[in-house]
Protein backbone atom coordinates (compact mmCIF):
# COMPACT_ATOMS: atom_id res chain seq x y z
CA UNK A 1 0.00 0.00 0.00
CA UNK A 2 1.42 3.37 -0.96
CA UNK A 3 1.36 6.09 1.67
CA UNK A 4 2.65 9.61 1.35
CA UNK A 5 4.81 11.21 4.00
CA UNK A 6 4.74 14.97 4.24
CA UNK A 7 7.68 17.02 5.41
CA UNK A 8 7.56 18.60 8.86
CA UNK A 9 8.69 22.01 10.06
CA UNK A 10 12.35 22.48 10.96
CA UNK A 11 11.45 23.49 14.50
CA UNK A 12 9.82 20.11 15.06
CA UNK A 13 12.91 18.25 13.87
CA UNK A 14 15.23 20.33 16.03
CA UNK A 15 12.97 20.28 19.09
CA UNK A 16 12.31 16.55 19.10
CA UNK A 17 15.96 15.71 18.57
CA UNK A 18 17.05 18.06 21.36
CA UNK A 19 14.39 16.72 23.72
CA UNK A 20 15.44 13.14 22.98
CA UNK A 21 19.08 13.96 23.68
CA UNK A 22 18.10 15.61 26.98
CA UNK A 23 15.97 12.57 27.84
CA UNK A 24 18.88 10.31 26.97
CA UNK A 25 21.09 12.31 29.34
CA UNK A 26 18.61 11.93 32.19
CA UNK A 27 18.16 8.24 31.54
CA UNK A 28 21.92 7.60 31.37
CA UNK A 29 22.32 9.28 34.76
CA UNK A 30 19.41 7.32 36.24
CA UNK A 31 20.81 4.06 34.89
CA UNK A 32 24.23 4.79 36.37
CA UNK A 33 22.73 5.66 39.73
CA UNK A 34 20.56 2.57 39.62
CA UNK A 35 23.68 0.42 39.64
CA UNK A 36 25.77 2.85 41.72
CA UNK A 37 23.32 4.40 44.21
CA UNK A 38 26.08 6.42 45.89
CA UNK A 39 26.42 8.49 42.70
CA UNK A 40 22.87 9.81 43.12
CA UNK A 41 22.92 13.48 44.10
CA UNK A 42 19.45 14.43 45.27
CA UNK A 43 17.58 15.54 48.37
CA UNK A 44 16.49 12.67 50.59
CA UNK A 45 14.01 14.38 52.85
CA UNK A 46 10.60 15.86 52.18
CA UNK A 47 8.64 15.40 48.98
CA UNK A 48 11.73 15.15 46.78
CA UNK A 49 13.48 11.88 47.50
CA UNK A 50 15.14 10.34 44.46
CA UNK A 51 16.66 7.39 46.28
CA UNK A 52 13.30 6.39 47.71
CA UNK A 53 11.81 6.35 44.23
CA UNK A 54 14.73 4.70 42.45
CA UNK A 55 15.00 1.92 45.03
CA UNK A 56 11.27 1.30 45.35
CA UNK A 57 9.48 -1.82 44.17
CA UNK A 58 8.14 0.28 41.29
CA UNK A 59 11.69 0.89 40.07
CA UNK A 60 11.39 -2.46 38.27
CA UNK A 61 8.98 -3.46 35.51
CA UNK A 62 8.73 -7.16 34.74
CA UNK A 63 12.04 -7.57 36.53
CA UNK A 64 13.79 -4.99 34.38
CA UNK A 65 15.03 -1.77 36.01
CA UNK A 66 12.82 1.10 34.84
CA UNK A 67 15.98 3.18 34.40
CA UNK A 68 17.22 0.69 31.81
CA UNK A 69 13.87 0.76 30.02
CA UNK A 70 14.10 4.55 29.95
CA UNK A 71 17.59 4.37 28.54
CA UNK A 72 16.42 1.99 25.81
CA UNK A 73 13.47 4.28 25.04
CA UNK A 74 15.63 7.35 24.59
CA UNK A 75 18.34 5.58 22.60
CA UNK A 76 15.59 4.59 20.16
CA UNK A 77 14.02 8.06 20.30
CA UNK A 78 17.31 9.79 19.56
CA UNK A 79 17.60 7.64 16.46
CA UNK A 80 13.96 8.16 15.46
CA UNK A 81 14.08 11.93 15.93
CA UNK A 82 17.39 12.45 14.18
CA UNK A 83 17.18 14.67 11.08
CA UNK A 84 17.99 11.60 8.96
CA UNK A 85 15.04 9.69 10.37
CA UNK A 86 12.72 12.65 9.87
CA UNK A 87 13.79 12.79 6.22
CA UNK A 88 13.06 9.11 5.68
CA UNK A 89 10.19 8.27 3.34
CA UNK A 90 9.25 5.10 5.19
CA UNK A 91 5.76 5.68 6.52
CA UNK A 92 6.08 3.11 9.31
CA UNK A 93 9.23 4.70 10.67
CA UNK A 94 7.21 7.81 11.44
CA UNK A 95 4.37 5.77 12.86
CA UNK A 96 6.90 4.00 15.09
CA UNK A 97 8.22 7.34 16.38
CA UNK A 98 4.70 8.44 17.23
CA UNK A 99 3.74 5.10 18.77
CA UNK A 100 6.94 5.00 20.83
CA UNK A 101 6.13 8.39 22.29
CA UNK A 102 2.50 7.54 23.05
CA UNK A 103 3.52 4.30 24.76
CA UNK A 104 6.30 6.18 26.58
CA UNK A 105 3.80 8.73 27.83
CA UNK A 106 1.54 5.95 29.04
CA UNK A 107 4.45 4.49 30.96
CA UNK A 108 5.28 7.91 32.35
CA UNK A 109 1.71 8.27 33.64
CA UNK A 110 2.07 4.93 35.42
CA UNK A 111 5.33 6.13 36.99
CA UNK A 112 3.72 9.40 38.07
CA UNK A 113 0.93 7.34 39.67
CA UNK A 114 3.57 5.24 41.44
CA UNK A 115 5.45 8.29 42.69
CA UNK A 116 2.42 10.25 43.88
CA UNK A 117 0.15 7.50 45.17
CA UNK A 118 2.27 4.44 45.94
CA UNK A 119 5.62 5.90 46.99
CA UNK A 120 4.59 9.38 48.10
CA UNK A 121 7.79 10.99 46.87
CA UNK A 122 9.08 12.51 43.66
CA UNK A 123 12.39 11.95 41.92
CA UNK A 124 13.74 15.11 40.27
CA UNK A 125 15.53 13.33 37.45
CA UNK A 126 12.55 11.09 36.78
CA UNK A 127 10.39 14.21 36.60
CA UNK A 128 12.84 15.58 34.07
CA UNK A 129 12.28 12.48 31.95
CA UNK A 130 8.51 12.85 32.36
CA UNK A 131 8.57 16.47 31.20
CA UNK A 132 10.74 15.60 28.21
CA UNK A 133 8.38 12.78 27.23
CA UNK A 134 5.35 15.06 27.59
CA UNK A 135 7.02 17.73 25.48
CA UNK A 136 7.82 15.13 22.82
CA UNK A 137 4.19 14.03 22.86
CA UNK A 138 3.02 17.62 22.35
CA UNK A 139 5.34 18.19 19.39
CA UNK A 140 4.64 14.85 17.76
CA UNK A 141 0.87 15.06 18.16
CA UNK A 142 1.13 18.46 16.51
CA UNK A 143 3.14 17.40 13.46
CA UNK A 144 2.79 13.65 12.97
CA UNK A 145 -0.93 13.52 12.12
CA UNK A 146 -0.37 16.14 9.45
CA UNK A 147 2.83 14.52 8.26
CA UNK A 148 1.10 11.18 7.80
CA UNK A 149 -2.13 12.57 6.42
CA UNK A 150 -4.31 11.64 9.37
CA UNK A 151 -5.81 15.13 9.55
CA UNK A 152 -6.77 17.96 7.30
CA UNK A 153 -3.73 20.20 7.14
CA UNK A 154 -5.70 23.15 5.79
CA UNK A 155 -5.86 25.88 8.40
CA UNK A 156 -9.28 26.32 9.84
CA UNK A 157 -11.11 29.29 8.43
Amino acid at each position, binding site marked *: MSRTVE*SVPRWAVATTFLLSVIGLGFSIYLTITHFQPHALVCAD*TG*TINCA*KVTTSAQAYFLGIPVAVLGLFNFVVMVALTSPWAWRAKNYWLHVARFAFTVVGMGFVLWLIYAEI*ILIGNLCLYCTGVHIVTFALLIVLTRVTP*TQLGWVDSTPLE
Partner: protein
Amino acid sequence: MAKSPANKKAQTPAIGGRPAGLFTWIAVGVVLVIVVGLVAIKMTSGSPAANASTTFEAVDATTMSQLSSVPASVFNTVGITSPVAPISAPTPLSGQPALTKTVNGKSLPLIQYVGAEYCPYCAAERWTSVVALSRFGTFSNLGFAQSGATDVYPNTKTFTFRQSSYTSPYIAFSGAETFTSIPNPATNFYFPLQKLTATQTALVKKYDTMKYIPTFTSTQENGSIPFIDMGNKFLSAGASFTPAALAGLTQGQIASALSDATNPVTQAIIASANEHTAAICVLTNNKPAAVCSSAGVKAAKKAMKIK
Protein backbone atom coordinates in the same frame (compact mmCIF):
# COMPACT_ATOMS: atom_id res chain seq x y z
CA MET B 1 13.76 19.96 3.84
CA ALA B 2 10.96 20.94 5.90
CA LYS B 3 8.56 23.46 4.96
CA SER B 4 5.56 24.36 6.99
CA PRO B 5 2.89 21.84 6.26
CA ALA B 6 0.40 24.58 6.72
CA ASN B 7 1.41 25.68 3.24
CA LYS B 8 0.97 22.29 1.73
CA LYS B 9 -2.15 20.33 1.24
CA ALA B 10 -1.83 16.76 2.39
CA GLN B 11 -1.63 14.39 -0.54
CA THR B 12 -3.51 11.67 1.25
CA PRO B 13 -7.08 12.22 2.29
CA ALA B 14 -7.55 13.53 5.77
CA ILE B 15 -9.50 11.38 8.17
CA GLY B 16 -12.74 13.11 8.77
CA GLY B 17 -11.23 16.51 8.11
CA ARG B 18 -9.95 16.87 11.69
CA PRO B 19 -7.84 19.95 12.40
CA ALA B 20 -4.10 19.47 12.82
CA GLY B 21 -4.03 20.53 16.46
CA LEU B 22 -6.79 18.20 17.62
CA PHE B 23 -4.45 15.35 18.55
CA THR B 24 -2.31 17.73 20.58
CA TRP B 25 -5.22 19.14 22.54
CA ILE B 26 -6.55 15.65 23.24
CA ALA B 27 -3.12 14.43 24.38
CA VAL B 28 -2.46 17.44 26.59
CA GLY B 29 -5.96 17.27 28.02
CA VAL B 30 -5.74 13.56 28.85
CA VAL B 31 -2.31 13.88 30.46
CA LEU B 32 -3.25 16.94 32.51
CA VAL B 33 -6.53 15.42 33.68
CA ILE B 34 -4.74 12.26 34.83
CA VAL B 35 -1.91 14.10 36.60
CA VAL B 36 -4.20 16.64 38.27
CA GLY B 37 -6.51 13.78 39.26
CA LEU B 38 -3.64 11.87 40.88
CA VAL B 39 -2.53 14.94 42.81
CA ALA B 40 -6.11 15.58 43.91
CA ILE B 41 -6.50 11.97 45.06
CA LYS B 42 -3.27 12.22 47.00
CA MET B 43 -4.25 15.49 48.64
CA THR B 44 -7.79 14.51 49.53
CA SER B 45 -7.30 10.88 50.48
CA GLY B 46 -7.33 10.10 54.14
CA SER B 47 -3.85 9.53 55.43
CA PRO B 48 -3.27 6.32 57.27
CA ALA B 49 -3.81 6.79 60.93
CA ALA B 50 -0.51 7.65 62.44
CA ASN B 51 0.29 7.81 66.06
CA ALA B 52 3.56 9.23 67.27
CA SER B 53 3.49 7.12 70.39
CA THR B 54 4.31 3.74 68.92
CA THR B 55 4.22 0.67 71.01
CA PHE B 56 7.51 -0.54 72.34
CA GLU B 57 8.38 -4.21 72.21
CA ALA B 58 11.41 -5.25 74.17
CA VAL B 59 13.78 -7.76 72.61
CA ASP B 60 13.17 -11.24 74.01
CA ALA B 61 15.72 -13.06 76.11
CA THR B 62 16.57 -15.59 73.41
CA THR B 63 17.42 -12.95 70.84
CA MET B 64 19.37 -10.93 73.42
CA SER B 65 21.37 -14.03 74.25
CA GLN B 66 22.10 -14.70 70.58
CA LEU B 67 23.29 -11.11 70.14
CA SER B 68 25.50 -11.05 73.21
CA SER B 69 26.84 -14.59 73.05
CA VAL B 70 28.19 -14.89 69.54
CA PRO B 71 30.79 -17.67 69.74
CA ALA B 72 34.41 -16.47 69.75
CA SER B 73 35.05 -18.96 66.96
CA VAL B 74 32.60 -17.09 64.73
CA PHE B 75 34.30 -13.74 65.41
CA ASN B 76 37.68 -15.30 64.69
CA THR B 77 36.63 -17.33 61.67
CA VAL B 78 34.90 -14.42 59.99
CA GLY B 79 37.53 -11.83 60.87
CA ILE B 80 36.85 -9.06 58.37
CA THR B 81 35.72 -11.33 55.56
CA SER B 82 32.36 -10.47 54.09
CA PRO B 83 32.44 -11.22 50.37
CA VAL B 84 28.72 -10.92 49.74
CA ALA B 85 28.12 -7.61 51.54
CA PRO B 86 31.33 -5.56 51.61
CA ILE B 87 31.92 -3.65 54.84
CA SER B 88 33.36 -0.25 55.61
CA ALA B 89 35.40 0.48 58.71
CA PRO B 90 35.14 3.41 61.13
CA THR B 91 37.30 6.40 60.25
CA PRO B 92 40.13 7.26 62.66
CA LEU B 93 40.08 10.72 64.16
CA SER B 94 43.11 12.37 65.72
CA GLY B 95 43.91 15.55 67.61
CA GLN B 96 40.46 15.92 69.12
CA PRO B 97 39.55 16.16 72.81
CA ALA B 98 38.51 12.82 74.28
CA LEU B 99 34.76 12.26 74.38
CA THR B 100 33.91 10.89 77.80
CA LYS B 101 31.02 10.41 80.16
CA THR B 102 31.17 10.10 83.89
CA VAL B 103 29.41 6.95 85.07
CA ASN B 104 29.21 6.27 88.80
CA GLY B 105 32.00 8.75 89.39
CA LYS B 106 34.24 7.17 86.77
CA SER B 107 35.10 8.86 83.49
CA LEU B 108 34.61 6.44 80.61
CA PRO B 109 35.10 6.86 76.86
CA LEU B 110 31.71 7.66 75.36
CA ILE B 111 30.33 6.10 72.21
CA GLN B 112 27.60 8.32 70.86
CA TYR B 113 25.13 6.95 68.33
CA VAL B 114 22.69 9.22 66.47
CA GLY B 115 20.11 7.66 64.20
CA ALA B 116 16.41 7.25 63.58
CA GLU B 117 14.00 4.35 63.51
CA TYR B 118 12.82 4.99 59.94
CA CYS B 119 16.39 4.95 58.63
CA PRO B 120 17.33 1.64 56.92
CA TYR B 121 21.05 2.37 57.15
CA CYS B 122 20.64 2.83 60.90
CA ALA B 123 18.78 -0.47 60.90
CA ALA B 124 21.79 -2.27 59.46
CA GLU B 125 24.26 -0.36 61.63
CA ARG B 126 22.49 -1.25 64.88
CA TRP B 127 23.26 -4.94 64.27
CA THR B 128 26.95 -4.06 64.10
CA SER B 129 26.77 -1.77 67.12
CA VAL B 130 24.79 -4.12 69.34
CA VAL B 131 27.03 -7.10 68.59
CA ALA B 132 30.25 -5.09 69.03
CA LEU B 133 29.13 -3.27 72.18
CA SER B 134 27.86 -6.51 73.72
CA ARG B 135 31.50 -7.66 73.88
CA PHE B 136 32.25 -4.85 76.33
CA GLY B 137 29.05 -4.60 78.34
CA THR B 138 25.36 -5.34 78.58
CA PHE B 139 22.31 -3.83 76.94
CA SER B 140 18.99 -3.80 78.65
CA ASN B 141 15.57 -2.84 77.34
CA LEU B 142 16.65 -2.95 73.73
CA GLY B 143 13.53 -2.83 71.53
CA PHE B 144 12.50 -4.47 68.30
CA ALA B 145 12.14 -2.06 65.38
CA GLN B 146 12.07 -1.90 61.63
CA SER B 147 12.90 0.83 59.16
CA GLY B 148 10.25 2.87 57.37
CA ALA B 149 7.81 0.90 55.22
CA THR B 150 7.96 3.42 52.40
CA ASP B 151 11.64 4.31 52.59
CA VAL B 152 14.51 2.66 50.74
CA TYR B 153 15.20 -0.92 51.89
CA PRO B 154 11.74 -0.92 53.49
CA ASN B 155 10.96 -2.72 56.76
CA THR B 156 14.56 -3.69 57.46
CA LYS B 157 14.41 -5.55 60.74
CA THR B 158 16.50 -4.15 63.54
CA PHE B 159 16.42 -2.80 67.10
CA THR B 160 15.87 0.58 68.68
CA PHE B 161 17.97 2.29 71.31
CA ARG B 162 15.09 4.59 72.26
CA GLN B 163 14.55 3.12 75.75
CA SER B 164 17.70 1.07 76.09
CA SER B 165 20.44 1.39 78.65
CA TYR B 166 23.96 0.05 78.53
CA THR B 167 26.39 -0.76 81.28
CA SER B 168 30.06 -1.55 80.91
CA PRO B 169 33.17 -1.21 83.05
CA TYR B 170 35.08 0.01 79.99
CA ILE B 171 32.89 2.36 77.98
CA ALA B 172 29.71 4.40 78.09
CA PHE B 173 27.15 4.34 75.31
CA SER B 174 24.43 6.78 74.39
CA GLY B 175 21.93 6.10 71.63
CA ALA B 176 19.60 8.76 70.27
CA GLU B 177 16.77 7.89 67.88
CA THR B 178 15.55 11.18 66.47
CA PHE B 179 12.50 9.97 64.54
CA THR B 180 10.07 7.06 64.57
CA SER B 181 9.37 5.00 61.46
CA ILE B 182 5.81 6.33 61.28
CA PRO B 183 5.14 8.81 58.48
CA ASN B 184 3.66 12.12 59.54
CA PRO B 185 1.30 13.36 56.78
CA ALA B 186 1.47 16.90 58.12
CA THR B 187 5.20 17.16 57.51
CA ASN B 188 5.60 14.49 54.83
CA PHE B 189 8.35 13.05 57.01
CA TYR B 190 8.26 11.02 60.23
CA PHE B 191 7.07 11.72 63.74
CA PRO B 192 9.91 12.99 65.90
CA LEU B 193 11.09 10.83 68.78
CA GLN B 194 14.14 11.91 70.79
CA LYS B 195 15.55 15.41 70.66
CA LEU B 196 19.32 15.62 70.60
CA THR B 197 21.01 17.30 73.54
CA ALA B 198 23.17 20.34 72.92
CA THR B 199 26.28 18.16 73.26
CA GLN B 200 24.97 15.60 70.78
CA THR B 201 24.00 18.32 68.34
CA ALA B 202 27.45 19.86 68.62
CA LEU B 203 29.10 16.50 67.89
CA VAL B 204 26.98 16.01 64.79
CA LYS B 205 27.56 19.55 63.58
CA LYS B 206 31.30 19.29 64.01
CA TYR B 207 32.20 15.72 63.12
CA ASP B 208 29.37 14.40 60.93
CA THR B 209 30.74 16.51 58.12
CA MET B 210 32.72 16.30 54.95
CA LYS B 211 35.74 17.64 56.84
CA TYR B 212 35.98 14.54 59.03
CA ILE B 213 34.13 11.87 57.03
CA PRO B 214 36.22 11.09 53.95
CA THR B 215 33.45 9.12 52.25
CA PHE B 216 31.23 12.19 52.05
CA THR B 217 31.39 13.61 48.55
CA SER B 218 29.48 16.84 49.19
CA THR B 219 28.37 19.04 52.05
CA GLN B 220 24.83 17.80 51.38
CA GLU B 221 25.85 14.63 53.19
CA ASN B 222 26.71 16.52 56.35
CA GLY B 223 24.56 15.36 59.24
CA SER B 224 23.87 11.96 57.67
CA ILE B 225 22.64 9.18 59.90
CA PRO B 226 23.56 6.84 61.33
CA PHE B 227 26.43 8.70 62.93
CA ILE B 228 28.64 7.17 65.59
CA ASP B 229 31.35 9.04 67.46
CA MET B 230 33.62 6.62 69.30
CA GLY B 231 35.25 8.71 71.98
CA ASN B 232 36.39 11.23 69.38
CA LYS B 233 38.90 8.59 68.24
CA PHE B 234 36.84 7.00 65.48
CA LEU B 235 33.84 8.12 63.49
CA SER B 236 31.31 6.11 61.55
CA ALA B 237 28.75 7.69 59.23
CA GLY B 238 26.37 5.55 57.23
CA ALA B 239 25.90 1.83 57.40
CA SER B 240 28.91 -0.47 57.66
CA PHE B 241 27.19 -2.78 55.17
CA THR B 242 24.21 -2.51 52.89
CA PRO B 243 20.75 -2.94 54.44
CA ALA B 244 19.94 -5.04 51.38
CA ALA B 245 21.79 -7.88 53.10
CA LEU B 246 19.01 -8.04 55.69
CA ALA B 247 16.10 -7.89 53.25
CA GLY B 248 13.27 -10.27 54.02
CA LEU B 249 14.81 -11.56 57.25
CA THR B 250 13.35 -11.27 60.73
CA GLN B 251 15.37 -10.37 63.81
CA GLY B 252 15.01 -13.96 64.97
CA GLN B 253 16.36 -15.37 61.71
CA ILE B 254 19.31 -12.99 61.67
CA ALA B 255 20.14 -13.43 65.36
CA SER B 256 19.89 -17.22 65.28
CA ALA B 257 22.28 -17.34 62.32
CA LEU B 258 24.97 -15.42 64.22
CA SER B 259 26.53 -18.72 65.27
CA ASP B 260 27.04 -19.73 61.64
CA ALA B 261 30.27 -18.24 60.31
CA THR B 262 29.42 -19.27 56.76
CA ASN B 263 26.17 -17.29 56.62
CA PRO B 264 26.65 -14.19 54.41
CA VAL B 265 24.47 -12.00 56.67
CA THR B 266 26.39 -13.17 59.72
CA GLN B 267 29.65 -12.43 57.93
CA ALA B 268 28.56 -8.84 57.24
CA ILE B 269 27.48 -8.26 60.83
CA ILE B 270 30.44 -10.00 62.44
CA ALA B 271 33.08 -8.53 60.13
CA SER B 272 31.81 -5.01 60.75
CA ALA B 273 31.44 -5.76 64.47
CA ASN B 274 35.10 -6.86 64.56
CA GLU B 275 36.10 -3.53 63.02
CA HIS B 276 33.99 -1.60 65.51
CA THR B 277 35.44 -3.72 68.27
CA ALA B 278 38.97 -2.91 67.11
CA ALA B 279 38.12 0.79 67.26
CA ILE B 280 36.58 0.45 70.72
CA CYS B 281 39.67 -1.43 71.91
CA VAL B 282 41.66 1.74 71.21
CA LEU B 283 39.38 3.57 73.66
CA THR B 284 39.64 0.87 76.34
CA ASN B 285 43.40 0.41 76.08
CA ASN B 286 42.78 -3.08 74.72
CA LYS B 287 40.55 -4.22 77.56
CA PRO B 288 39.20 -6.78 77.94
CA ALA B 289 42.19 -8.65 76.58
CA ALA B 290 40.13 -11.69 75.62
CA VAL B 291 38.24 -9.53 73.17
CA CYS B 292 40.92 -7.11 72.04
CA SER B 293 43.54 -9.80 71.51
CA SER B 294 41.26 -12.19 69.68
CA ALA B 295 42.13 -13.26 66.16
CA GLY B 296 39.11 -11.57 64.63
CA VAL B 297 39.86 -8.22 66.26
CA LYS B 298 43.54 -8.54 65.39
CA ALA B 299 42.59 -9.02 61.77
CA ALA B 300 40.45 -5.88 61.95
CA LYS B 301 43.24 -3.91 63.64
CA LYS B 302 45.64 -4.95 60.93
CA ALA B 303 43.24 -3.89 58.18
CA MET B 304 42.53 -0.61 59.95
CA LYS B 305 46.24 -0.05 60.70
CA ILE B 306 45.61 0.04 64.45
CA LYS B 307 48.46 -1.05 66.71
